[in-house]
């Protein structure tokens, strides 16, 4: 009987442990705690799962920005403090729960998130409901600054339509018949729609489009089908590990030797994960550390990130960096932390050279809260000539105003509370 009781107790404890685990509530990791009343910025980005690397890189950029802002007197004379939560890579409910916790219990002043488009959409809805200025650093789905736009939400990274417009001409120049493969969720559909529309305008034909489930490991079947359609260009829109897996397999099949491999958004994180022979193709980088012309600010930013991580910044690092600086610039300009006033100050805000780190003057478009940045179009290379981390060659830089669709076409209507 004694033995029986013991086992029941243990079981009860185990079950309680599981229940606690399932709630996924962890203590937030507070990066900086100085000063009397810091300005808190909540970060709701993935630290576990498939987007861990991207999320961590964004957070690294944020930490550097916070450090720079604090060194220059902070926001309204108060120190900046990042309150970091793990949104997970795919659980939208967790991302929402963390957003609510950051706003309601940690009382953050601003909110940032998320790498995953679906989570970014959900977070932007929470932010609007609770009147919280929110920046989406790296979730690309068009609707975030389109039909689902919110007065509280601003975005650093590009939309699918922007990338499609920027990339359509270079792609059609390579070949008119285009076959698209993309991940079957908000992000993949955004990019595929953006490119399909723009490629037709540029005189190309889309001979086929296939969507595959997020996290697909074997691409042979989909590549066999794409090859059979005999396109000039195979456009691979997969991001993260899916991008690595699909490219690695396409190159093993020798597809890069039979037709042109290309895509839109490519990331250094993906090229680094590929064996040298698979670093091929024509791509768009939203930000790249080794830019063709000497742009003020870039060298300092690269050096700052190298000092803290030992690696060069990626586009993700810059997204996070720009997001934190944007809040600081806007709040210092508005001279208040009031949500509506900060959001109005962000509208039309131009990023200064040391934050922009790119040619031109990126600014937040007032009509849809989308940043209008430059993009870098070029090709991947197996090995950098001077630097092992230089895996991309920028062939041309396109300025935002040339490829961003007019605000009237995005479907965004902002409603500020009255």
């Amino acid at each position, binding site marked *: 009987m004694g033995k029986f009781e013991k*086992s029941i107790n243990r*079981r009860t404890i*185990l079950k309680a442990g*599981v229940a606690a685990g399932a709630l996924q509530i962890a203590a937030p990791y507070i990066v900086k705690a100085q000063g009397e009343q810091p300005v808190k910025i909540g970060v709701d980005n993935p630290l*576990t*799962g*498939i987007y*861990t*690397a991207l999320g*961590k890189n964004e957070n690294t950029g944020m930490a550097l920005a916070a450090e720079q802002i604090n060194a220059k007197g902070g926001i309204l004379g108060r120190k900046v403090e990042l309150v970091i939560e793990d949104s997970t890579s795919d659980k939208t409910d967790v991302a929402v729960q963390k957003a609510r916790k950051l706003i309601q219990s940690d009382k953050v002043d601003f909110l940032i998130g998320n790498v995953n488009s679906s989570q970014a959409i959900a977070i932007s809805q929470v932010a609007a409901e609770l009147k919280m200025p929110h920046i989406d650093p790296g979730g690309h789905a068009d609707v975030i600054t389109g039909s689902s736009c919110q007065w509280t939400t601003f975005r650093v990274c590009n939309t699918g339509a922007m990338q499609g417009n920027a990339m359509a001409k270079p792609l059609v120049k390579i070949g008119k018949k285009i076959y698209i493969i993309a991940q*079957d969720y908000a992000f993949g559909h955004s990019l595929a729609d953006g490119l399909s529309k723009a490629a037709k305008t540029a005189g190309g034909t889309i001979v086929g489009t*296939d*969507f*595959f*489930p997020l*996290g*697909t*490991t*074997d691409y*042979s*079947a*989909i*590549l*066999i*089908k794409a*090859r*059979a359609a005999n396109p000039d260009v195979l456009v691979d829109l997969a991001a993260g*590990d899916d991008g*690595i*897996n699909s490219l*690695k*397999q396409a*190159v*093993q*099949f*020798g*597809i890069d030797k*039979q037709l042109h491999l290309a895509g839109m958004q490519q990331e250094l*994180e*993906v090229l*680094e*994960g*590929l*064996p*040298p*022979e698979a670093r091929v193709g024509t791509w768009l980088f939203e930000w790249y550390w080794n830019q063709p012309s000497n742009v003020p600010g870039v060298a300092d930013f690269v050096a700052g990130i190298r000092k803290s991580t030992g690696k060069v910044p990626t586009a993700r690092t810059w997204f996070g960096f720009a997001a934190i600086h944007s809040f600081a610039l806007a709040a210092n300009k508005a001279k208040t932390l009031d949500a509506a006033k900060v959001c109005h100050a962000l509208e039309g805000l131009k990023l200064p050279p040391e934050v922009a780190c790119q040619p031109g003057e990126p600014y937040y478009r007032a009509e849809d809260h989308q940043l209008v940045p430059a993009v870098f179009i070029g090709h991947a290379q197996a090995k950098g000539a001077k630097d092992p981390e230089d895996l991309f060659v920028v062939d041309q830089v396109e300025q935002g105003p040339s490829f961003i669709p007019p605000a009237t076409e995005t479907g965004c209507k902002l409603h500020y509370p009255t």
Partner: protein
Amino acid sequence: MTQVILFNVLNGLIVGAFYALMALGLSLILNLSGVINFAHGGFLALGAYLAYSLAPYLGFWGGLVIAPFLTAALGIIVERVLIRRLYGRDPLYSLLLTFGLAFIFQDGLRYTWGASSVPYQIPGWLGSPLSTSLFFLTGYRVFMVIIVALAVAALFLILGYTRLGIRIRAGTLDLDTVSVLGVNVRVLRNLNFGLGIYLAGLAGVLAAGLLGLSPTIGDQLIMPSFVAIIVGGLGSLPGTLAGGLLIGIAAGLTSVFFPTAQEAIIYVMMALVLMVRPNGLFGDAGRVQ
């Protein structure tokens, strides 16, 4: 179109062979110990990372040979220290344990090797197609199938003709009797667990040649392997093998017509098989795990 379908049937067999390799390891452990090893994907990833770290010293081939053994050694330790304590209890206990282990593996790998994918290189001559018309037949895929075939043949030889193998099979059927006959069941289960984990490590090294090597590499591979076991029938290793090949072909064929459903089809197939044959294709009737 016929050509595309034929391509995909052949290619599905290649993919299925890989699922089968993972599923066989899972199945061995499930059959003898009644443990649903959720940490299998973690062991798989560990095998791959070990091969990656060994490659600069031992080359691709050295990694391929040594890494699975190191993984198996860790498997034997984990069984001895943790899993053994939960035999005979509600299966929920071992399920929770291995579920937790899977997370520990993933974070441990992330801590050691970083969250980003690392480039794992295979010999150049393996990484190109054998012919231009059958371009999906790369040297590496054929090599994978050969290794899987060798591993499966070796596994069935061990199970069929060695004393250890015969005891494992006997234990699968009736562990109590085997124990009464003087076989040390603890050692038997320990070695059997190691054998299953060896297959996971081998699958990991092979997968790393095809996929990006990241801490989550095992996650996407483990569910199809569970389905392979259920489709093939619990308790039947040939069934597991057939189940793996079958879902590979089904996923391949589906992607010709409706790529979005290539993941869902695996589960649809499982449901269909269970409706017609509730014990799976080759499962024993009335077997309770």
